[in-house]
């Protein structure tokens, strides 16, 4: 696939890296030659220097035969115009743009269509990250929660602890413990190494377990793996930027939320906007400020400023001062490995959470959702099975008969409103949403092939 990416920033760069490794023709446009050179040295991609929305620049980047334009520059306006130019002059089939401000996104149905601004998919990284954190707060104890089929099915990562009833037992015991709850363990990571779970696999303490279940059953399954945590009540957010504000706004009516913001002006603005939230003005890395914010009784401390180092330091401090859980926004992937799992409970990488929402549009086959897991090494995919038993490699077959690539498991199937947890004898029907877990991202291509319909279908 020929893809043009506008903007060589964090999102653009991570995206280029992910897509170039999947054998696409990638051209990145940016105005900064240094950033382009750095990317071009590291990746097998083309680079064009210039303003991404100018027709000549787009043409130089090969817009005439590009399949997709992904506009992720810092400017909403440049992104929008670039999509318009690509549509009007080059008839680019798919156009994806990052639009941050809610002033545009709140009117997206009227604004973004063929007659106005022709953008096929709007992505808003801040919103994606906010939703991601929100799900984590709603599921105490989970390391990661992702939604499939509109939230009917969820994939949850948890760390197993001593005291969980299932820990030290074989997986097949799960059925006996909970006859009414259906779930499937998709993968287990033990000391960073993946294990494909079988019925006789024994779960050990400190394993990272990925399981799939219907939304309502998540809590029950988690209780098998660890002592269940109480629901969170008191949340302290450090940093009232875009993400902090959005998060505060979306959870303030259900939780007791405080926001700590450094800039007085911004703090005042937040105070005006968020009526149910306590807005404090001060530094999150200041011990006294944290104590004043009642840190020792805080359930979750979220460090969401745009400064990695400040986030990490504030989180370490908060943990030391008695916060029960700390979640930290970390852009630099090198830091994530350093700190996650020690004093910081959950490190959130904005690029990794955003990348998934983009990847689903790039994938061949009818792929609805892609989530990048474990810092991009593993992947969860929701794909729709099309065709019939002749043209498709999956439809009409029982799960045990499907020739799955190595390291891939089918976790669940969503048929209409029904959620079927994948057991060996479940037969896949046309239009089923199949949820797969890939231990190794490099197998994505094989999974795509599996879900592509043979030519006889047409």
């Amino acid at each position, binding site marked *: 696939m*020929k893809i043009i990416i506008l903007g060589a920033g964090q999102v653009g760069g991570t995206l280029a890296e992910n897509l170039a490794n999947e054998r696409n*023709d*990638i*051209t990145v446009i940016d105005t900064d*030659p240094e950033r382009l*050179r750095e990317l*071009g*040295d*590291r*990746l*097998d*991609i*083309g*680079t064009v220097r210039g303003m991404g929305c100018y027709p000549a620049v787009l043409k130089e980047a*090969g817009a005439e035969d590009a399949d997709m334009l992904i506009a992720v520059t810092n400017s909403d306006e440049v992104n929008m115009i670039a999509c318009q130019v690509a549509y009007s002059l080059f008839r680019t089939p798919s156009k994806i743009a990052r639009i941050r401000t809610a002033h545009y996104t709140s009117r997206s149905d009227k604004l973004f269509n063929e007659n106005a601004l022709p953008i096929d998919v709007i992505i808003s990284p801040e919103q994606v990250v906010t939703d991601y954190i929100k799900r984590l707060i709603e599921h105490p104890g989970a390391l990661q929660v992702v939604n499939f089929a509109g939230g009917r099915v969820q994939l949850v990562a948890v760390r197993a602890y001593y005291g969980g009833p299932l820990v030290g037992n074989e997986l097949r015991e799960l059925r006996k413990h909970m006859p009414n709850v259906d779930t499937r363990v998709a993968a287990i990571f033990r000391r960073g190494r993946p294990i494909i779970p079988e019925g006789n696999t024994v779960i050990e303490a400190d394993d990272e377990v990925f399981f799939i279940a219907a939304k309502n059953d998540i809590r029950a399954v988690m209780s098998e793996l660890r002592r269940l945590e109480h629901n969170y009540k008191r949340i302290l957010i450090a940093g009232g930027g875009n993400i902090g504000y959005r998060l505060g706004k979306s959870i303030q009516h259900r939780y007791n939320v405080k926001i700590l913001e450094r800039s007085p002006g911004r703090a005042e603005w937040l105070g005006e906007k968020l009526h149910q939230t306590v807005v404090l003005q001060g530094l999150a890395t200041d011990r006294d400020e944290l104590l004043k914010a009642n840190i020792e009784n805080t359930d979750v401390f979220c460090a969401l400023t745009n400064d990695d180092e400040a986030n990490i330091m504030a989180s370490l401090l908060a943990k030391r001062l008695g916060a029960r859980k700390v979640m930290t926004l970390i852009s630099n992937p090198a830091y994530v490995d350093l700190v996650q799992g020690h004093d910081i409970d959950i490190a959130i990488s904005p690029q990794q959470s955003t990348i998934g929402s983009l990847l689903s549009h790039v994938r061949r086959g009818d792929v609805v959702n892609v989530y990048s897991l474990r810092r991009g090494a593993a992947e969860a995919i929701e794909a729709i099975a099309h065709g019939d038993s002749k043209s498709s490699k999956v439809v009409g077959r029982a799960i045990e008969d499907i020739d799955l690539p190595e390291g891939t498991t089918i976790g669940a199937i969503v048929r209409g409103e029904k959620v079927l947890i994948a057991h060996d004898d479940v037969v896949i029907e046309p239009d089923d949403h199949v949820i797969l877990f890939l231990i190794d991202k490099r197998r994505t291509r094989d999974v795509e092939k599996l879900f592509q319909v043979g030519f006889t279908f047409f």
Partner: protein
Amino acid sequence: MHFALISKILGLLLVVFSFTMMPPVAVSYWYQEGSEGPFLVSFVITLLLGLALWLPFFKHKEELQTRDGFLVVTLFWSVLGLIGALPLYISNDVPVGFTDAVFESISGLTTTGATILSGIDFLPKSILFYRQQLQWLGGMGVVVLAVAILPMLGIGGMQLYKAEIPGPMKDAKLTPRIAETAKALWFLYLFITTACALLYWAAGMTLFDAICHSFSTVATGGFSTHDASMAYWDNPWIDWTATAFILIGGVNFALHFAVWRGKSLLAYFRDPEFRFFISLFLIYTAIITAGLLFFHYDFSVDDALRHSAFQVASFSTGTGLTSTNAASFPGFIPYLLVFTSFIGGCAGSTGGGMKAVRAALVFHHSIRELRRLIYPNGVFALRFGRQSIPDRVLQAVWGFVGVYITISVIFTLLFTMTGMDLTTAVSAVAASLNNLGVGIGQVGGGFANITDSAKWMMVVLMVAGRLEVFTLLVLFTPMFWRQ
């Protein structure tokens, strides 16, 4: 340094290139010469050597770094040069020793075209074909070919490509993916070579000669299947065809690609380097034609124009085919011809020398310095065509030119120590470093009579010239080897 990885890639490349010993075997069977033995032996040796380097690290997975790229490319050219000498060394039809065999092989692979052989007309066809084929493979670059056909080189392919492709702006890719770029380059190269062979055939060569000479023409090589080179035919059609295709080979292939994709010849004339290159060609041709007529050399006006155009194209791109004995031209003409080779062809072409774009940039930069003398506070952007050139590129160009000239001077002195006179020494430097391949003075008739030490120095210069000095020179800096 990732030696395991380097060994793996080197081995893989050798395995692939062992199969280039097969076409000469086919030629030998076709003409029933019974001369395939040396090629089969060389094939087996190359294949085994390649496997020995490749198989132990078969499963090794790492990404090639920029540094490794230099080492792989230099090693590959040297090893392939040595291995390429095997068939010549083994064969009983070619009475050469080890030094001469290596000289001939490297001279072929680097598209130099300097030869130590005489009586070429009587050699077996398979050997003749093999020499031409070496040039053709070296023309567009053996590593670029490998990148095109071996997708597993992946991102490392770009490091190799950068270390081999000539010119100051190495980041310019034709397509986003390096393998596609390499494929496009080789496809164009093949297409142009085919066209050249057909035209030669139509102009009166035998099919064998047409194919052989199309190889050395488009690769701007210089080997011929006849001692007299192109003068063997003395046919205006053949000479003009050769002139045209030498120039085509001397132009940036990225530009050919742009023309081919944009379906418009205008792209040529919009390119500043092409304009510079062609202007120089026209000026030189005019001077030399005038010179030949002024000295009343025994040519008609037509012939004077034909031969001067041919010789200028041949010398200025570092080809070295000859349509007449240029070394015996009167007066200043042979010296001028030798010096044209220092500027050489365009960046990204098969030509040798410092490349037209560097000369043009140095020229423009000098003009800017002159303007600065007049307006000390003036701000003069250095524009090349429609692009303004970043200082980083300019510094690299000056650095390159400085090193190139220094090396030329040092080796001129070294050559005089082996007993050459100054004219011969300068011409030997031009012949090897610029990949020109023909000499004047004592080496006007070939390089068979120079000393062995001079031959080895030329071998080093030929590889240095083909890899644009820096790729080779960087290996001799201590910083390169420091972990």
